């Protein structure tokens, strides 16, 4: 009986020690790219702290905008490595949360979800980015409000219209806030204009659209 108990205990101990275990330094990373950055890259570092090799079965991302790469297919015991997650910022704004799902042959931790959070600075908040008039509607000015971020002081705002059929007047209203009054010459035909909005200190260009639509407007 004692032999049986000893054998059972020993087998349990062997099973416990001879395991594969990928230990992650962190499974969640927060990045703060600058306004000029095109990508945000997170490095998820790991180490195989077990006594068996760990094999990656798949590494999937939650979005086409994020690519993830593992340095190796198999991680021998004791070895370190990392999964690199590259998030293409594109023209995204605000806080973006993307995940990378890692599947391994480790039965105890078969799936690990890595989270990449990118806080994209928003220098200007433009509301709305689209103003429109229905055909035949009175060509009264419509207002776009621009608010500068606290850490992005703006003294002067330059707005240009791609079409002479629309006029844009900028007025500073205080506390880093501006209003842009957009007015069409008339609303007889469906036309559009792209408004480019620029500050004095940043090369970044912001956009808004003004349009005369076919249908009568109720804004």
């Amino acid at each position, binding site marked *: 009986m004692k032999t049986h108990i000893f054998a059972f205990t020993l087998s349990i101990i062997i099973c416990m020690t001879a395991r594969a275990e990928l230990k992650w330094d962190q499974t969640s990373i927060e990045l703060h790219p600058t306004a000029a950055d095109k990508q945000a890259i997170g490095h998820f570092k790991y180490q195989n702290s077990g006594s068996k090799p760990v094999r990656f079965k798949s590494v999937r991302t939650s*979005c*086409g*905008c994020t690519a993830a790469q593992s340095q190796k297919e198999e991680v021998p015991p004791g070895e370190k490595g990392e999964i690199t997650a590259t998030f293409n910022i*594109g023209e*995204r*704004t605000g806080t973006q949360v993307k995940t990378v799902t890692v599947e391994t042959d480790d039965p105890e931790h078969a799936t690990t979800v890595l989270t990449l959070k990118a806080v994209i600075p928003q220098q200007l908040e433009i*509301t709305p980015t689209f103003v429109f008039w229905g055909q035949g509607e009175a060509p009264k000015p419509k207002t776009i409000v621009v608010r500068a971020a606290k850490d992005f002081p703006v003294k002067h705002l330059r707005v240009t219209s791609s079409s002479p059929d629309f006029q844009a007047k900028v007025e500073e209203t205080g506390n880093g806030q501006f209003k842009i009054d957009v007015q069409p010459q008339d609303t007889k035909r469906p036309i*559009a204009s792209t408004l480019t909005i620029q500050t004095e200190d940043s090369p970044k260009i912001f956009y808004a659209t003004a349009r005369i639509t076919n249908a009568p407007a109720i804004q």
Partner: protein
Amino acid sequence: MVRQVLIVAALAFVPGLGQAIYFRDKVSWQSPVPASEMVTVAQARAWGGNAIWVDARPDNEFARDHVPGALSLNEDRWNELLPQFLAAWSQEKKVVVYCSSQSCNASREVARRLRNEAQLKNVFVLEGGWEEWLRTNR
């Protein structure tokens, strides 16, 4: 017996309640998009020509295949694609945004920006996305 069951149930309730309070902001069953802003393939198809289909997937996926007549509007080229979408938009139309599948988030993001930034109304997210559209149109 009943008393024991009640005690066990009460004990199980305590950690559940604690977790619900602690994680109240990220309850897993809470959909990020209200049900009223979601639309099924059947509902959207019933809108016929009154709907504008918006493909929020990356350019290469849109180029491979998309809902017939859909316009590409993704956040990689937002500033360039938005005016093209607005040229096709009119007030009476409903906007149906989709991405790859139920789990993707691009359609929600594009819909959010159309509502909040462009201040458009009648913007909906397609349930199940492109995968669901393919499944129901096979």
